[in-house]
């Protein structure tokens, strides 16, 4: 992280971090949220902002493998760390080929676990981390796993089904996203 001054007079910071396995950097003001940083500075618009106060979970990304609300973090505060967004859940970044989707993504499509798709990235990241912690959830576990994210379209019915289906699919898959860092960050 280096410092400078924006044309607006506000102090600027060079933020370097790893996003979806690749080095990334941008120069931003200290109050730039991680969600805005990802979306507007890095162009990773898959992360969505639903409330800007940490309740809806649409902006959930994985920070060193753990789900966090990117609207409640400043980009400068995660400099040097590893972020996984929905774009990083797909093993191949080339095209949206159904064969390259992760187990959770495939399960969402199979189970019709999304409608408008706006909350979906937050659920996908949350469940990706959740299944790593509990690879064989019961239906009750599946409910608990997604109990911090809001969806207005699905009544959560098929998201719960997708958690269970993703667990089945994962048994034959290697999760492509980074494991949580040892001893936290």
């Amino acid at each position, binding site marked *: 992280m280096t410092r400078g001054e924006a044309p607006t007079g506000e102090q600027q910071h060079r933020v370097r971090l790893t996003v979806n396995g690749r080095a990334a950097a941008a120069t931003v003001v200290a109050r730039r949220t991680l969600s805005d940083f990802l979306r507007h500075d890095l162009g990773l618009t898959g992360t969505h902002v639903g409330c800007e106060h940490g309740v809806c979970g649409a902006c959930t990304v994985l920070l060193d493998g753990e789900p966090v609300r990117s609207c409640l973090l400043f980009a400068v505060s995660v400099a040097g760390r590893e972020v996984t967004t929905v774009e990083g859940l797909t093993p191949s970044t080339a095209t949206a080929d159904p064969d390259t989707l992760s187990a959770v993504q495939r399960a*969402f499509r199979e189970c019709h676990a*999304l409608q408008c798709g706006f909350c979906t990235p937050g659920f996908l990241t949350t469940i990706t981390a959740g299944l790593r912690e509990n690879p064989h959830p019961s239906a009750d576990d599946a409910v608990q796993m997604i109990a911090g994210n809001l969806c207005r379209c699905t009544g959560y019915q*098929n998201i719960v089904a997708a958690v269970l289906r993703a667990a089945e699919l994962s048994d034959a898959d290697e999760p492509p996203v980074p494991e949580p860092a040892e001893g936290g960050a």
Partner: protein
Amino acid sequence: MATRYFGQSIKRTEDLRLTTGRGRYTDDIAVGTGTLEAAYVRSPHAHARIIDIDVADAIDVPGVVAIYTWEDLVGAAAEPLPVLIPHPALHAPRTGYPLARDEVHHAGEAIVMVVAQNRYLAEDAAAKIRVDYQPLPAVVGLDAARAAQHAVHADVPDNVAARLVQTVGDLDAGFAAAPHTLELNLEIERSCSMPLEGKAVHARWDADDQSLRVYSSTQASTSVRAAIAAKLGLPLGKVEVIAPDVGGGFGAKIVHPWPEEITVPFAAVRLGRPVKWTEDRREHFVSSAHERGQQHHIRVGFDDAGRILALDVQFWHDNGAYTPYGIICPIVTSTQLLGPYKPGAYRVTFESLYTTTVIVTPYRGAGRPQGVFAMERTMDAIAARLGLDRTVVRAANFIQPDEFPFDQGLIFQDGRPLIYDSGNYPDQLIMLKELIGWDAFDDERRRARDEGRLLGIGLGCYVEGTGPGPYEGAHVQVQTDGSVEVAIGLTSQGQGHQTVFAQIAADELGVPIEKVRVTTGDTRRFGYAVGTFASRAAVMSGSAVALAARAAKAKALRVAADILEVDASDLDIVDGVVAVKGSPSSAIPLGQVAVLSNPLRYAFDEAAKAATQFAKPADPDKPPVAEDDEPGLEGKDYYSPPRSTFASGMHAAVVEIDPDTSEIAIRRYAVVHDCGNMINPMIVEGQVHGGVAQGIAGALYERMAYDEDGQLVNASFMDFLMPYVTEIPQAQLGQLILGHQETPSPLNPLGIKGAGEAGVIPVSAVLASAVEDAVGVPITAMPLDPSTLFELRRGRSADSSSPPTRPDAEGVSR
């Protein structure tokens, strides 16, 4: 084609994009390209006169590009926003301005627009703008509006925007003949659509071309386009509006033009630079739209069997500060209140009233939940009075299957007669009773009571007019590579339109679904459309796609018949190949037909050579394109039905009330749903799931908590209790059970009815019925939270004179 796609749960083509972060919502458009961003100064007062606006401090904020007030608007943009749906009964319509002029009528109304390099800086500047207000009295809630001690609009002293009466049958004779009468007073509070993506507008002005492109998170891109063209004084052909991926709508995004849909393009034109605005959550709470708030007074006369002989309903509808969407919601309430029933006589009177609160426009269900609540509470009250089973009373009032088409004798929200096209309500009730276990419930209740648990069961029935006109259209074009482009003007907010309309086009044309691409809500591709509302997309655009695809197919067969020198009636298209029926060797791929349907001079690619003028001998006396024909393999058509088609359904719930805390838990929830023929059952079920969740939200959790000054005090997700998964009964836990009935509509070529809103409609009625059944206290107002129920039950035990509605509820005998 071996199998039809219609009726199959085809996986959505949208999902590859949306599950990988490749969706394009309005705020995602052209990120990182220096688009300016807008923020608004919004009124902190519910009602105030604007004395002065001082922007001096804001202009100096670095990064600020422009600041606009009403004074800066010119021409039609400075005039009031349109009354979108005028109605003779709406005698005092009022609308706001894109930026408030002299007076604000609700907290949250936009007054000043700031455009800056980014949203952070725009908000910095907005915070430095000083507006002097002279506060005026707030009018909050229907009681205050009806009392009219203060007026919301000075020239509407009684606060009444509209008054409408509809009568069918002889009400006096009905009451005179009725051995029993009873009266109810009911109330439903406000809720709102609350899509996860709020509104958003992105506008680019092309100064060289003098044209404007606008992306908007809207349910009606063609009409937004027309409104922008009119307001900014641009030719329609120089304005394009695109609804990209839209993160839910549920009604709020059918309203247009939103003030920001005028001011953002206005700024883009004025500045010659791209400008966008993305609504934040608080803005969505205080400056979009709410719905539901109504009070009802019902008088009903009925016979010993529970048959309604006369029904007299008076209700009051809170329309908020303005009436841009007319009186659609109360009209829907007043007509759809009748549900699957046929009262002997019916009179409904409503007043739509102004309050100094956020505007009220359709939210999924659009007035139906309130009407169904009124009717179903009435049915339960009749059953309680007569000591009859609640399902028996309903069955006694059903329209019978042999009575369709059934004319209710009223005028519906589309201005057309309220004539039900098809349905089978008695069968639906039988299905519902089986799904929920109605007949065995008394035993279940008794067993639970022995364990100290308090259970109740309830039900609710509805009929929903879906697929209203005036029309939708579709364009189908077969490309020279055999792929098919389908375009409709109607938008999508997550209903899977790309998938279901591809199913229809693929079936009609005889091509694999993978060959079909669907574009929705893009005025560049299809300019005529009405919008996505009233559960109309499948019915209207689905029918239009079928008709347009049939036209394209007819042309394909005609062109192929010439080439293959056979009669067109001997041909069919299977798997993208036009072939003589029963003689597959005589065949031509559809892509090749497309090539030959467009006589060419220039061979721009290898395939095109076949269509050039020296490629094959032609009749020298005939023009290459016949007189009434046109080049290309395309079909375009419109579907415009005589009137709406009527879907229906019935829900039932078993609830458990904590005897000590009055906490309400839904143990089982059953749905029987009829939307005619289903294009994609997976998607229909998804719609029902989401609707039921929103219904439960409105029944038990969500309300708009206005204080007496007109401040919305729960305007965040911290305080507005939008349900998480833990609040909604889950199918995976055996708590939600779905049943389908299919009574095809005779009104459209596919026999379909709408499904979008259905799930939400009866839920408040169902849960009120179930809770009342459990605790024996009349439930007359929703939403119902545990504290309120606790007080109701305590009041009941304190005041033994208020009669329980069920003799055995809570073990209290009458």
